[in-house]
């Protein structure tokens, strides 16, 4: 039961180590980018008055698609850089699912390959499913 991987390729502990490192790397990368964007944001508009967060204006928000976020990053806009960090933070668990998928595939565990694929499909649905209301 402990073996997630066949002995020939990778040991169970190896994939667990790998997932552990991947999760940590994702969180560290995301927080560094968020920090850079945040410092830039404070330099650019730290002295301005706070926008009214009590009134929700989410529907009109700009940084809601990947292309818009990327455009903002290229133009070195602080909020875009922060949002890029946020996207990397969200990509970390997604990448973790893909790592597990590879692991189950190497172990030829068909049931868990299907289970993992299903979870990935749900994630894909929430990314591409046109849920932007």
């Amino acid at each position, binding site marked *: 039961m402990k073996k997630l991987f066949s002995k020939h390729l990778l040991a169970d502990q190896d994939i667990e180590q790998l997932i552990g490192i991947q999760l940590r790397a994702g969180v560290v990368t995301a927080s560094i980018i968020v920090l850079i964007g945040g410092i830039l944001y404070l330099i650019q508009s730290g002295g301005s008055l706070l926008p009214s967060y*009590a009134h929700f204006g*989410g529907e009109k928000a700009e940084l809601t698609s990947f292309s818009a976020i990327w455009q903002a990053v290229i133009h070195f806009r602080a909020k875009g850089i922060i949002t890029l960090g946020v996207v990397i933070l969200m990509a970390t668990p997604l990448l*973790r699912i893909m790592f597990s998928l590879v692991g189950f595939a190497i172990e030829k565990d068909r049931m868990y390959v299907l289970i993992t694929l299903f979870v990935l499909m749900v994630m894909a649905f929430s990314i591409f499913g046109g849920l932007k209301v």
Partner: protein
Amino acid sequence: MTILTFTLLLIAGAYLAGLVGSLTGLGGGVVIIPLLTLVFHVDIRYAIGAALLASIANSSGAASAYVKEGITNIRLGMFLEIATTVGAVVGAIVAVYTPVNTIAILFGIILLFSAVMTIRKKNHEVLLQGSPAAAKLKLNNSYPTAKGPVNYQLKNVGAGFGIMTVAGVFSGLLGIGSGALKVLAMDSTMRIPFKVSTTTSNFMIGVTATASAIVYLQRGYMDAGIAFPVVLGVLGGAFTGSKLLSKIDAKVLKYIFCVAIVFVAAEMMFNGFNHKF
């Protein structure tokens, strides 16, 4: 208030949220939402977006350590993620049609439930004979202890799966990790040893939160100006908390926190019923 003042105050608040959240095992999201809505008067929808990010950061950070130790049951986590991700997407869709005051009241109820779950007796017993379904799904496993690996089996797979779906819906609807519901499903229903159920729950929270966070991002709930202090503050707090955990007795803290949570829950529900959101 200037953006600088708000940012510094929020970093301090989020740091405390991450610290207390990791010491009590409740995660940062539970503190972030009341902090943003009750103290800073931020719209609850922005607060939900920020809390989801806090949950992802917390989960990925903590899980990286647990996975390496081999306590987390990866198969169990993946199997139950079917339930939580479907639930989370449904919850995120339903959230659009749910009045904010209703969300506040539901949040209060979940807070009260979390407080009860935190102080209840934990399941440390190992189940030696599980159900056939658990064996078929290869969910039985072992975990390392000081005395060597301990084998465990589990039962009530269907009921656990059902509670997990509900946990996912609440996670998507309220922006929290639903750790209390996840532990209820694994610990009390499926009879999984406490250490395995908490670490596996923690491992799953990141995926559950991401499933709905993507929907919220596309809807503009994730404001960079709020996300930045929250992510950094919660991460810093959780990091400090994990260092402190072995040095201090978190038991007293847990009781104090539970009392505080009951007050916050009451305030959220009171404001919700009076349409203050």
